[in-house]
């Protein structure tokens, strides 16, 4: 199966000369449709910088990134913005939703931006929100929703326009354990169902139980890739025990 995302020897250097910092160094991996990957690592390991490059928000200093066969570095700024709008879904850690739009309008925003808002797509947005357990909160504004509900709306928004790649930056950071599990589980289910390629950046290894592969980063390098189910579950279980012991 053709990979949705290909990162080839990607590096990002900040500054120049002796003061330069290699935030990301020689990172390569591929993600195929229907695959949900966790990008994990401690703070400063380069995972968010990597995510920004995958989204076309930052240009790699070296290497290249291809999404659906298209090379991001060869696109103009405006084409990259258009590409991001059409082919990438985003969920962030905070400031995820537009405060003056309802849950439903926030999801429909991606359809509006892509000029794809019609009766069918509106129904799809409502169905997706219902699927995420928000059928009675569609008319609520973000300030009227809990953190978990807001993240679920953000997930619906990231998926509604049928992007090739869905990126989530620490979407569970402000949630309690139960809500965090619920959010990531639903996210994983939808990625698998809709055959999208998904990447979740997290430092919470417990969330790994729902992913298909774990890419661990340390000091800008990929130090380990775990794609064995048993190993991933063991990693998640170990992390859960560590949390429980605290």
């Amino acid at each position, binding site marked *: 199966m053709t990979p949705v995302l290909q990162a080839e020897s990607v590096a990002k250097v900040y500054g120049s000369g002796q003061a330069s910092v290699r935030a990301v160094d020689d990172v390569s991996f591929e993600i195929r449709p229907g695959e949900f990957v966790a990008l994990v690592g401690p703070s400063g390991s380069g995972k968010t910088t990597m995510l*920004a490059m995958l989204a076309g*928000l930052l240009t790699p200093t070296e290497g290249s990134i291809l999404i659906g066969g298209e090379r991001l570095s060869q696109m103009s700024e405006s084409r990259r913005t258009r590409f*991001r709008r059409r082919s*990438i879904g985003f969920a*962030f850690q905070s*400031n995820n939703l*537009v405060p003056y*739009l309802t849950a439903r*309008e926030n999801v429909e925003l991606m359809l509006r931006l892509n000029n794809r808002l019609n009766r069918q797509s509106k129904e799809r947005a409502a169905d997706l929100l219902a699927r995420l357990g928000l059928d009675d909160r569609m008319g609520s504004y973000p300030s009227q929703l809990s953190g978990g509900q807001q993240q679920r709306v953000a997930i619906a928004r990231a998926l509604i326009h049928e992007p090739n790649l869905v990126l989530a930056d620490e979407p569970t950071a402000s949630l309690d354990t139960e809500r965090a599990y619920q959010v990531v589980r639903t996210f994983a289910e939808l990625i698998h169902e809709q055959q999208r390629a998904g990447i979740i950046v997290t430092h919470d290894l417990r969330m790994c139980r729902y992913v298909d592969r774990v890419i661990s980063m340390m000091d800008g390098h990929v130090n380990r890739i775990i794609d064995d189910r048993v190993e991933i579950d063991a990693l998640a279980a170990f992390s859960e025990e560590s949390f429980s012991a605290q």
Partner: protein
Amino acid sequence: MPLYLAIKEVLQNKGRFFLICLIVALITTLVLFIAALAEGLAAANKEYIENLTGELIVFQENVELSFPSSRIGRSTVNEIRRVKGVADVGQVSFASGALVFEQVSPEGVIIPTTATPQPPLDVTLVGVEPGRPGEPAVLSGASLGRSRSDGVIIDANVALRRGIQLGDMITIKTTQGTSEEFYELMVVGMADKLQFQFLPSIFIPYTTWEKVRPKANNSVETDELVSNVAVVKLADPSQWRQMALRLEEQVGKIEVVDRVTAYKASPGYAAQQSTLDTQRYFTLFIGILVIGGFFQIQTLQKVAQIGMLKAIGASNTVVVISAIAQIILVNCLGVLIGGLGSYLLQLSFPVEIPVIFTGRSVGTAIISLLLIGPISGLVSLRSLLKVEPLTALGLAQ
């Protein structure tokens, strides 16, 4: 799409945007009233001149277009009348006097002429030739009769406020030498828009005016009829420029100008108008700063949100148009509220306050106020463009 975001945000934050609308409304009211005041004061200065039936006004040369300094004799008027293209000429003179509502009897007793005592009213006594340019068209009653008659035309506003009616006798007080003299004149006609240099006017036939006007003891007596200016009515009003030159060439020692030049040369007219214009532009400038400042602050508060919108693929165009559309919307609403408010407010103003809303001045003010929106938008434009989508990931520098 941009309009959708702009309107949604306004509707969701009605209170905040209403306050901004209110500020725009107050600025609108201020600008409209300054414009109306400018118009009102200008009218008080020039009304009579502006509404003259003649196109050109003839002054004596080298008097800097000063009405009181200028002297035009009968012989000059006759020369003017002979110039080809001149339809008619009328001599006009100005003097000051007071309309009084009491009389002093030969025995020195003060007798009120109205049922209730009223303070005297300063007026301009305008001497005109009956039936010639310079005599105003009457709203009611009759035009002036013979030049020796004591029938006069008065300002309809004065008549209304002081309870004077057609056929009434009015008393004019002027100073002759060192003593005050009272003259009884009859109101034969009423006309409006007759103020000259901030005073209401009373139009008196020329010979009667000569008798009534204040005189010093040592007045130079001349054989001919001398007026301050002459008003010329042209056969073809569109030829006024050429005719002004022709008159100056063919008749000596005169300066000929159109009505606008004449009133603009009035003392203080330019200074007064430029003061009011400065106030008007300054208020507009404050408006731009206030509205621009508000939206700049709002932009700075929304950096994270704008970053998120850009990260999910909203272009700079969408973000910028949305913000500017919002400013224009709020501004237009403010101008509308302010315009309606001003209209209602001026209904409650007493007639003495010289505010006049003319289509032109209101139109100019409204257009300038509507421009506040887009100009203010430019203030926050740079900030909007500077917001990086990386902000959404907390990576923006």
